């Protein structure tokens, strides 16, 4: 039998991120990824000065009554940290806003419910019709191999939409995920939220309108008004602006989690996940560490364990060798929440697998004559 020719993959020499990746990433001449390089900026930044910049920035948004900013919260570790920071360090009164896409784990929901008890601020939760969500789950899975498109879109839309409706110009986001993981921006750019980034990256080019012309899982325009992003005129009228906390305050997950546990009783997952070793991430969405992430493995040949290992290597919490072992253990696992999801959307595993396979990237996967899929692995690199 002739040996199967596998597409060439290279991995960052410092972390474990692969070149074709789900996020835009660039490798330099030394084979180091932009994410690692941007990460090193953190040691050179004067973070005390950054805090001063941020205090200066938020000053015009202070008011004597009503909320002074919006924070989109899921109840996760970052939500707690942001809310803590905004109240304690910035002295602002936030309004908390949540998109509930019906995917919460019990522990994540408990954390979310606790927010209005431990923080002195109001909390607004938006929950779309479950019937619409199920159709969106199915349609997005078929069309883009991602049942959680509604979650990306909801999280990226609802806080901004509410901010405009409530006439609150300042929205404070936490981590710029694409900067942090892939090194999309420099910390020196002081990047803010844009409509373009929302559509291009967070929603992968699909807006709510694109979901309307599907025959198999039809959705009406009137059912999706909640996903309609404010237009430029409204943005201008309100002066809407979204800033990222991690451009102004050094993001340190370990310390942040310790603080929110102690001070606010935040809970991590009680049971381990099947696809990653971390128990502090993605408690707000059962598929983010499971079915959704398994699809990332199908598409790009890696998953959440690679993401978490990468972050932990950069934070100095583990070596690359230790990380590779974790990637080997977790990235390929087909998690059992897939069956939970299939029950939710009333479809079969065969349906799932057949559709999922159509999204395998030819830059990563090769199929053998027996139908099995193969790719290069990081532990095989010389």
């Amino acid at each position, binding site marked *: 039998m002739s040996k199967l020719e596998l597409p060439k993959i290279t991995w960052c020499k410092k972390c474990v991120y692969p070149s074709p990746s789900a996020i835009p990433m660039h490798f330099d001449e030394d084979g180091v990824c932009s994410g690692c390089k941007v990460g090193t900026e953190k040691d050179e930044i004067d973070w005390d000065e950054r805090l001063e910049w941020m205090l200066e920035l938020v000053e015009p948004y202070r008011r004597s009554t009503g909320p002074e900013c919006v924070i989109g919260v899921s109840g996760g570790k970052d939500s707690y940290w942001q809310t803590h920071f905004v109240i304690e360090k910035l002295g602002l009164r936030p309004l908390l806003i949540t998109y509930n896409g019906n995917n919460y784990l019990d522990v994540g929901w408990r954390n979310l419910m606790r927010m209005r008890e431990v923080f002195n601020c109001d909390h607004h939760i938006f929950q779309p019709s479950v019937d619409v969500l199920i159709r969106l789950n199915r349609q997005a899975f078929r069309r883009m191999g991602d049942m959680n498109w509604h979650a990306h879109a909801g999280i990226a839309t609802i806080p901004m939409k509410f901010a405009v409706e409530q006439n609150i110009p300042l929205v404070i986001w936490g981590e710029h995920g694409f900067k942090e993981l892939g090194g999309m921006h420099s910390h020196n750019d002081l990047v803010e939220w844009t*409509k373009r980034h929302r559509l291009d990256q967070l929603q992968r080019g699909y807006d709510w309108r694109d979901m309307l012309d599907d025959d198999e899982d039809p959705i009406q325009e009137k059912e999706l008004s909640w996903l309609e992003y404010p237009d430029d005129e409204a943005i201008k009228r309100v002066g809407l602006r979204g800033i990222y906390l991690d451009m102004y305050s050094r993001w340190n997950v370990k310390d942040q989690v310790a603080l929110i546990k102690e001070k606010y009783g935040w809970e991590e997952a009680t049971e381990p996940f099947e696809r990653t070793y971390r128990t502090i991430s993605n408690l707000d969405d059962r598929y983010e560490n499971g079915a959704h992430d398994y699809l990332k493995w199908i598409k790009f040949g890696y998953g959440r364990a690679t993401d978490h290992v990468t972050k932990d290597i950069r934070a100095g919490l583990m070596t690359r060798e230790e990380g590779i072992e974790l990637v080997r253990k977790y990235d390929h696992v087909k998690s059992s929440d897939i069956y939970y999801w299939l029950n939710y959307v009333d479809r079969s595993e065969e349906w799932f697998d057949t559709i999922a396979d159509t999204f395998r990237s030819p830059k990563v996967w090769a199929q053998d004559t027996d139908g099995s899929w193969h790719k290069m692995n990081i532990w095989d690199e010389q």
Partner: protein
Amino acid sequence: MLKRRVIVVLYLLDGFMTRSEVFRIHQLLGHPIHHVERLVEWDVDELIVIDISTDTPKFDTDRDDYRYKGPKDLLGFIHQISSNCRIPLTFGGRIRTMEDIQLRIQNGADKVTLNAVLDESPDLVREAAEKFGSQAIVASIDFTRDGDTAEVVTHHATKRQGVTPVEWAKRAEKLGAGEIFLNAVDRDGKASGFDVDVIQSVVDAVSIPVIACGGAGHPRHFLACLEQTNVAAVAAGNTFHFTENAYPNLKTFLKSKRDDIR
């Protein structure tokens, strides 16, 4: 009255939109299509797209879970962005032959920028100006600065030319270029302001329009360049990616200060 232009530069690397710093550090910002959509909505004065891919360009953006199919090559890319692009469009990067120029102009470009050609085959500049008109040929001049001395560099700032931007610009004008796109390599991505001295020296030396680029990070930088030099246009890339409605906000600011902005 001819208004002074505020130009958006879009750097492309393997088909991705790219943040650039000192021409060497590159960070991929995403797919250009939605950025161009925004530029058209903002009715920008002009868009300059520069393909800075060094190896064989891959146009590697295609993925099955994205709304739009990624173009396979430059032509596909041009078609994708120019179909709704009702704004002036200039293409640069990887242009070495008459065919390269023709391909771009026939498919949506109003002008092309030439950089390495100024070094490798100056005759091509002359021929191109004759064939397509001087107005379609923009000489792209990159320079580095060491103290008071500015020196031209070409080929993605990897080849030193040992001449000043003034000399290089005069030569380009003589060859038939209709415009100068002047970029300060050391200021690229640094948001430290335009190099007004070098810019004005080039403006004084030639009688064709000069576009200044490199260093813009704040609306005040654009204003300073317009006030302190006679450039026909100010240009920037990175800064228009960083904040919401960065371009229209900049225009509103500049219009409040000057009457030569559209």
